[in-house]
């Protein structure tokens, strides 16, 4: 790569922040659309969250995909078809490394470089201050556009209960790496999401006692239905465009016939219908509940001394508490108003991607769907690339597109009915979301 120390103005180049899965697709698709790209990555290698060597990676030894391979791979760079339905995280990392190598993305990535500040210059352009993670002076460069792909699974959400008076060990799920951490201990896992369930299952195989605390009842889908990955069965119903009510009915029936009555295992009754929360896919949780290896308990109300008090008044004495509370998005290099952040730091973006007041600022990969993230991030970045190109090549048409997009109803691409849990703020249905994106892409189709 050329030496640019004395060139502050990068002219038409686009800056991409992060070289995880979302950053890599952004770099590849922007370059494919003819843009010069500088990507900044604070780590010294690609892969972001999927690279277990990275400080901020939430991977643990046994992490596997939750969505199946065909619903997770990049649409234009499939995973090897002889890989399992649910590959291991190390395979995902190898896949991302091969993607970067295949498309020669390394030429555009500055590793070990942290973005400190991104500030608008006024004419749609941006000053990006970077610093080597090894220290040293800051450098400022000017870009035509900025694409943020810094991930959203690295800044743990704190537990809502005070833990300062508790004597046992409390760690966030992000710090759980290896089953050895659980061996022979009494473990309480807090959180009913995919991570919470996965760790509870791991604990069931290692710890002496396992409690699993969830605030509400969830619909726990098995990983396989009728011998097929469950998400593939679900997409068959979406393909047939079965109405939500019918799908809910079928889901209910299927679960009743296969897993049966979940409350028999001590799980609370879900307070919502199927498809009204982010899917939790775990075949083994019920198995270990049925073997008495996991005890389901309600919400935690107090941690003090050696005891944990539960919502039903019960008191338990774990020596390790793992909080699978999820993560919050964080953009410490951007002023909050640029992404219209609310008080919890959650941005308000058009299609969860485009900054509303800044046409040259976009975020890629900040969605959560009932399918893998990579295909969504891919098409988001294609849309961003086409948009940035159209702005320059045909400003009149770009203005028309912008006008039309501003009238696109939010409910056409967000999930309408979800339980009011803070983790659902960026939940989408992958089919509705991709339909909205496809409509936008068609408007921007090169002539």
């Amino acid at each position, binding site marked *: 790569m050329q030496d640019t120390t004395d060139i502050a103005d990068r002219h038409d180049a686009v800056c991409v922040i992060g070289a995880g899965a979302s950053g890599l697709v952004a770099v590849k698709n922007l370059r*494919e659309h003819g843009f010069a790209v500088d990507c900044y990555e604070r780590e010294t290698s690609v892969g972001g969250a999927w690279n277990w060597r990275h400080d901020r990676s939430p991977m643990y030894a046994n992490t596997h995909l939750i969505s199946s*391979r*065909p*619903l997770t791979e990049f*649409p*234009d*760079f*499939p995973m*090897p*078809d*002889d890989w399992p339905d649910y590959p291991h995280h190390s395979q995902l990392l190898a896949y991302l490394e091969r993607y970067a*190598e*295949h*498309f*020669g993305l390394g030429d555009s990535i500055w590793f070990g470089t942290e973005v400190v500040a991104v500030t608008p210059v006024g004419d749609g352009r941006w000053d990006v201050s970077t610093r080597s993670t090894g220290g040293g002076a800051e450098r400022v460069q000017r870009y035509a556009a900025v694409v943020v792909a810094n991930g959203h699974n690295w800044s743990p959400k704190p537990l809502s209960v005070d833990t300062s008076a508790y004597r046992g060990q409390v760690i966030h799920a992000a710090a759980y790496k290896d089953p050895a951490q659980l061996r022979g201990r009494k473990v309480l896992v807090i959180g009913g999401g995919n991570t919470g369930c996965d760790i509870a299952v791991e604990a069931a195989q290692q710890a002496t006692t396992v409690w699993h605390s969830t605030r509400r009842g969830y619909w726990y889908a098995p990983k396989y239905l009728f011998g097929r990955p469950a*998400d*593939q*069965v679900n*997409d*068959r119903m*979406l*393909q047939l465009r079965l109405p939500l009510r019918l799908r809910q009915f079928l889901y209910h029936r299927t679960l009743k016939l296969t897993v049966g009555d979940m409350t028999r295992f001590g799980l609370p009754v879900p307070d919502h219908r199927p498809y009204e929360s982010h899917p939790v896919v775990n075949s083994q949780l019920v198995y270990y509940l049925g073997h008495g290896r996991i005890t389901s308990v309600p919400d935690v109300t107090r941690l003090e001394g050696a005891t944990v008090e539960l919502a039903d008044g019960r008191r338990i004495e774990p020596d390790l508490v793992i909080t699978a509370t999820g993560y919050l998005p964080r953009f410490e290099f951007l002023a909050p108003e640029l992404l219209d952040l609310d008080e919890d730091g959650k941005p308000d973006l058009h299609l969860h991607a485009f900054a509303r007041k800044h046409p040259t600022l976009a975020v890629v990969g900040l969605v959560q769907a009932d*399918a893998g993230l990579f*295909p969504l991030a891919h*098409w988001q970045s294609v849309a961003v690339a086409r948009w940035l190109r159209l702005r320059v090549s045909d400003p009149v048409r770009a203005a028309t597109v912008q006008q039309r997009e501003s009238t696109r109803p939010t409910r056409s691409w967000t999930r309408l009915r979800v339980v009011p849990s803070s983790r659902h703020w960026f939940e989408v249905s992958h*089919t509705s979301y*991709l*339909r909205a*994106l*496809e409509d936008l*892409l068609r408007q921007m189709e090169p002539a």
Partner: protein
Amino acid sequence: MSSQLLRFEDWTSPVPAVRREVLKALPDGSVDTPPVLFVPGLGHGAWAFAEHWLGHTASRGFGAHALTPRADLSLRAYVHDVVQVAASLPRQAVLVGHGVGALVVSHAMARYPARAAILAAPVLGGWGTLGAALRANPLGTLPALFGAAPRLSRRQLFSADLAEADGYRARLVRGPADVYRKLLFAKPAGRPVGEPPILVVGSPEDRVVPRKALDRTAGRFGTAPLLFPGMAHDLMLDTNWREPIDAILDWLIKELATQAGG
């Protein structure tokens, strides 16, 4: 228009994995040229390229690979296999499709951002293809209209002076007529992703691909065909096999230089 984004068929019933035969010839030492993947048409296998073109391509500094169509063939499975092999190569691949292989490449281009694509003696299907086959080889083609496997004649594929023609013809695999019909009357491919440069090559004497079809194909991609008069359909097996592959590689080198410069 079918959706590029919502790929229910791939999501709900993925093409089953098979062991694929991929023959290759690699240049000495490491190179920074893109790998080239040859995609044969119906009846042919990777062997047809291994005969001359693979080795020659490698000798000119490109990693050369050729894929044999799977036994249980369909357009969808063939496109899947081409994209799988292309994605398994170390760098963004150049796709070269011959005959019906060009049709497969045109579909693969909508799924995978090829570095460049070459359609050699392209059979993109439709009534024109059937008409040409009937004219050149009525006895071999007619039964195909009634469900039997079509039989390609020697003079359809090879030049009269090609000594090895009978040996090559013996290696051809006859697929079920149904596969031919489905391939030739498949929906046209979607727009290529990543805007790869595309070259169409062929021969005016080709008895499978009429000159008009060649012009039409090239026109679809905004170019004119590069012609090799006097050659038969199987360019890569002809006595003059060296000419078209050299022209293809010269074009490729020029295109890569333009891309790097632009």
